């Protein structure tokens, strides 16, 4: 009864196989990335083998070791411990199971389907399967929590509107401000997700969205109470919430590898009215905020001071608005300069390209 073990190495010299009754020790010199090194491993075998009857063959690409078992028995695994070694793989071509002795042509797969499936799953699935499950569970929970948060915001605003009518539009910040700050504050995580490889996609897009929104919410609105009663805040909260109400379900479906075509369509269409509405609303709020910050001097730093720096917040805000809102690109020396595009143009074009990729261009009428 034999076990065949195969090792694959880039370029092996002087392989040395040592067999103790319960251990296989392999040593060799190899030419790897760091030059000539000594490689070795030790396997604790499940049960005893007969060292004298061990054979090994060295070919160009591998070393084949054939072990002869002491007792004629089936081993559930090669090693004494049940834990799976990351570099040890089953060669299913040579896999033999118990009842094969009688009929050679039988299908191995049907003998122990559970065992085979589990082994196949373990061999071919990502190494860190448990980690992957944690990642997916966490992301699903995050997306659903945020979805709930924004649904609550919309719900509160709608409820108060029903009760008080148009008057409630001046009190949007009072109604849903805390909820919005919580939800938007938490969105910082969406920058960390791609940064730590938990989701695909770039870091730049979430960074831009989160920074833009948090600047509006935590600096401009929070920093000036007179801004909080502007009706534009109502529209702002509604637009932001509507976008998220589609985005989070879409992400959740992606994670569980399902698709609802309606959600996908919404995801790639709803930005067409909502993004421009959002830009306009934010633009209006920034413009209205400027005189207040000139007056109060909040977030501004005047000289003299210990760091010898002057910071005039309204001026900086105006510069930011210029960069973000002015349409078009700069023509530089007859060449289009990629670097000087406005933020919103970039975002709109990105969504448009995504839409074409996912939904496709308008279908041509068939004859």
């Amino acid at each position, binding site marked *: 009864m034999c076990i065949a073990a195969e090792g694959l190495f880039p370029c092996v010299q002087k392989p040395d196989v040592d067999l103790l009754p319960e251990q296989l020790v392999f040593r060799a010199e190899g030419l790897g990335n760091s030059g000539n090194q000594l490689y070795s491993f030790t396997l604790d075998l499940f049960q005893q083998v007969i060292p004298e009857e061990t054979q090994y063959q060295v070919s160009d690409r591998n070393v084949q070791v054939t072990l002869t078992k002491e007792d004629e028995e089936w081993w559930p695994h090669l090693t004494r411990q049940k834990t799976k070694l990351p570099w040890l793989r089953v060669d299913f071509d040579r896999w033999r199971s118990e009842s094969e002795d009688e009929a050679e042509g039988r299908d191995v797969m049907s003998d122990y389907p559970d065992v085979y499936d589990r082994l196949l799953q373990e061999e071919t699935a990502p190494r860190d399967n448990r980690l992957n499950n944690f990642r997916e569970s966490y992301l699903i929970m995050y997306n659903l929590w945020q979805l709930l948060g924004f649904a609550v915001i919309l719900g509160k605003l709608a409820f108060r509107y029903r009760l008080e009518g148009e008057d409630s539009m001046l009190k949007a910040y009072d109604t849903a401000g805390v909820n919005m700050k919580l939800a938007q504050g938490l969105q910082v995580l969406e920058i960390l997700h791609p940064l730590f490889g938990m989701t695909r996609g770039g870091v730049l897009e979430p960074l831009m969205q989160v920074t833009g929104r948090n600047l509006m919410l935590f600096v401009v609105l929070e920093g000036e109470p007179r801004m909080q009663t502007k009706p534009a805040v109502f529209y702002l909260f509604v637009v932001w919430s509507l976008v998220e109400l589609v985005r989070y379900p879409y992400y959740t479906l992606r994670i569980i590898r399902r698709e609802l075509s309606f959600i996908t369509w919404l995801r790639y269409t709803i930005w067409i009215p909502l993004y421009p509405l959002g830009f306009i609303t934010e633009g209006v709020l920034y413009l209205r905020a400027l005189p207040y910050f000139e007056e109060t001097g909040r977030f501004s730093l005047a000289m003299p001071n210990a760091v010898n720096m*002057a910071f005039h917040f309204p001026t900086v805000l105006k510069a930011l608005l210029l960069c973000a809102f002015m349409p078009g690109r700069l023509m530089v020396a007859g060449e289009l*300069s990629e670097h000087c595009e406005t933020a919103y143009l970039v975002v709109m074009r990105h969504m448009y390209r995504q839409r074409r990729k996912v939904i496709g261009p308008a279908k041509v009428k068939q004859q």
Partner: protein
Amino acid sequence: MSKVEILHAGSGKSLFTLNAAPSTSILELKKQVCEKRKGLYPGRVDLKPKQRGKGYGDSDTLASLGLHAGTKLYLKDLGPQIGWVTVFLAEYAGPLVLYLWCFTRPWPLYDAGAAAKPVTTAAKVACACWTIHYAKRLLETLFVHRFSHATMPLSNLFKNCSYYWGFTVFVAYHVNHPLFTPPARPLFITGVVLFTLGELGNLSIHWALRQLRPAGSRVRRIPQPTVNPFTALFSAVSCPNYTYEFVSWLGFTVMTQCLPAGLFTAAGMYQMTVWALGKHRNYKKEFPEYPRGRKAILPGVL
């Protein structure tokens, strides 16, 4: 005569074929490309073996690269080019002129009457230091450096000048402000000393690198310490010129106690670290005998 097929690097489409012999150089091929495509000149043409990646050097021949008949080369238009020396001169002349202009407290930046107010010693010394630094850079560009490349894309000119000129006004506005408060004497002296050491060190390294490379050549050799004590830093880092540059700007920040100067130092350090890591990696790849203990930019750290 064999055929070389030229493909567009962006799309992968076949464009045309050129005639070539094994002794034909890449530069000659580029000239042929320019005859087929108006508006191109060899300086902005890149011919490369794969769609992405670096192009071949002008002086290489088909034979020396091991390329045979029917080989394919990808063509990339690098865009309008500008000479490296031109870019450097523009980058450094701006800060020199702009800082001196800000020193006079001109009306676009300051209130009327600001120019008449007293100027602290610290602000005067800072102005002198800044001027010395950029004058030194201009002179080095003209007389010391031996550049590896002749040209760079035109868009770099605008990017680099925006960075240097923008930061100059940002720093100069604050240091020359009538309400500027200088740091305490000991800090000020420390800053000046650091700045001086940094400048001398940086110059020493540039000079040593010049000695390492013969005139008109583009060879690269492992830099080693020389008789100049400042070059001893070569034993610790691959790019001591950047290390000394950081020390200079640290000195400037300390002598002015100015946050904009600190931000400028940080931004410069970040960029220089990126460059140093790249150079360090290239050195190690090119020279298997490259000394092990050396770091890229900060001794013992990075």
